[in-house]
């Protein structure tokens, strides 16, 4: 950014000021019902079935929000995992199904416990909440993956939903789940890990798909508007990349 005489902070501020009006405009369109249909993301649409399978078999569903925490670089990914957990907790509470949530970062522990507690209260079953449903495994990614793999091996689980920040350690959990026939829905933003996820999971949420979770579950106008803003911004950035490439070729010639 120094090449064009702007600091990273200034560019970020400019981007923010450009995105905000678009977000508000598209949110108002979504509120007026002019947003159109959301494209299909099989992994997100299959989530209610994961809870359904769990209810049918009376076996718990495993949920992981990744190895990241709240407050670090992976906050956004962890937050999408927590948003999905809210949806799953509501569905599980409505059909009296048990979730087992594993966390690797202690900052996520009280939030995840609170999500399950509130879901139980919302569905009039406050006695159904058990704080040990949320388990802090280990803060080191490899130790966390080993702990979750052990849990998948030993405890009868119908499915595993893992959405958040994962690295290479994912394979340890993913392959264990695949070997045991546990239905796995996995999403992460790291392109390196996505290849491993694609190879071992039943449904994969690729990169930005995980950020669409809220719009698919709660369908609030601002979430749908945010999704549309993301689509528009992607087209703008792609067009800018193509135009800059053409400009560079022409000026070099």
């Amino acid at each position, binding site marked *: 950014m120094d090449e064009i005489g702007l*600091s990273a902070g*200034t560019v*970020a*501020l400019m*981007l*923010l000021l450009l*995105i905000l009006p678009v*977000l508000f405009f598209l949110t108002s369109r979504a509120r007026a019902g002019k947003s159109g249909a959301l494209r299909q993301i099989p992994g997100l649409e299959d989530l209610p079935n994961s809870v359904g399978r769990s209810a049918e078999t009376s076996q718990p569903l495993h949920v992981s929000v990744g190895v990241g*925490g709240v*407050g670090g670089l992976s906050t*956004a*990914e962890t*937050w*999408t995992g*927590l*948003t999905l*957990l*809210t949806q799953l907790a509501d569905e599980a509470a409505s059909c009296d199904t048990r979730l087992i949530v594993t966390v690797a970062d*202690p*900052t996520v*522990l*009280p*939030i995840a416990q*609170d*999500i399950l507690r509130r879901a139980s209260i919302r569905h009039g079953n406050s006695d159904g909440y058990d704080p*040990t449903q*949320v*388990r*802090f495994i280990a*803060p*080191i990614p*490899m130790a966390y993956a*080993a702990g979750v793999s*052990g849990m998948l091996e030993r405890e009868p689980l119908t499915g595993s939903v893992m959405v958040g920040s994962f690295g290479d350690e994912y*394979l*340890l959990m993913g*392959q264990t789940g*695949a070997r045991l026939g546990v239905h796995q829905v996995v999403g992460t*933003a790291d*392109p390196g890990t996505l290849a491993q996820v*694609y*190879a*071992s999971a039943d449904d994969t949420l*690729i*990169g*930005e798909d*995980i*950020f*669409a979770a*809220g719009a698919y579950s709660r369908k*609030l106008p*601002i*979430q749908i508007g*945010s999704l549309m*803003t*993301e689509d528009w*911004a*992607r087209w703008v*950035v*792609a067009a800018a990349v193509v135009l800059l490439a053409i400009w560079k070729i022409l000026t070099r010639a």
Partner: protein
Amino acid sequence: MAILKRTLPAALAIAVGLFVLVALLLPVPLLSTIGTYFIDCAVIIAAFALFLGLLNVVRVHFGHIRDRTKTWPYSAVLLAALLLVFVAGVFTLTPSQADPSQPSGLSHPAMQWVFTNVMAPLQATFGALLAFLTVAAAYRLFRRRSAESAVLLVVVLLVLAGQASFGLLPVLPQLRDWILDVPALAGMRGILLGVALGTVLTGIRLLLGVERPYSD
């Protein structure tokens, strides 16, 4: 009560979040100082969360032992190890009065022994397993017999051949480099672009207080 339980915490979170964002974006020293103070406060609160994590581990595994689940012996070993390291950590926390120059805390030889002889080998072992798990994952993928799996198989074989061509076919390393530098990199950048936009918009929704999984 609803104001105290819901509105006030949410308003505080949004206000502090917006303040820290503005402090990061605008180069004003006073804003920066206050923003750093808020971040330091968050770090201290996060440190307390580690204590909650410790209590959670004890509670979960104590429950396994009490209920005599199938895995209770593992839980007993885990709690014993936890207690041992915790006690060792407490006793080695402060420098020895006889010789204050001796290392203390995590640098103490007892703690270092635990990390060098228990933690590091275990992590290295699990790390080494990943190579075999990658092969198993690839095998599982190829058994799906889909078009995507076939493309992946061809690309993997070409990259592997380029990596280990032993100079027999010079075109293979060139092909490997082209695959990695053009289609693979383009795909990766496309994913990262979407992730970056998704992160920005998730941040905006959080700061606007729209997405709050921690409250009704």
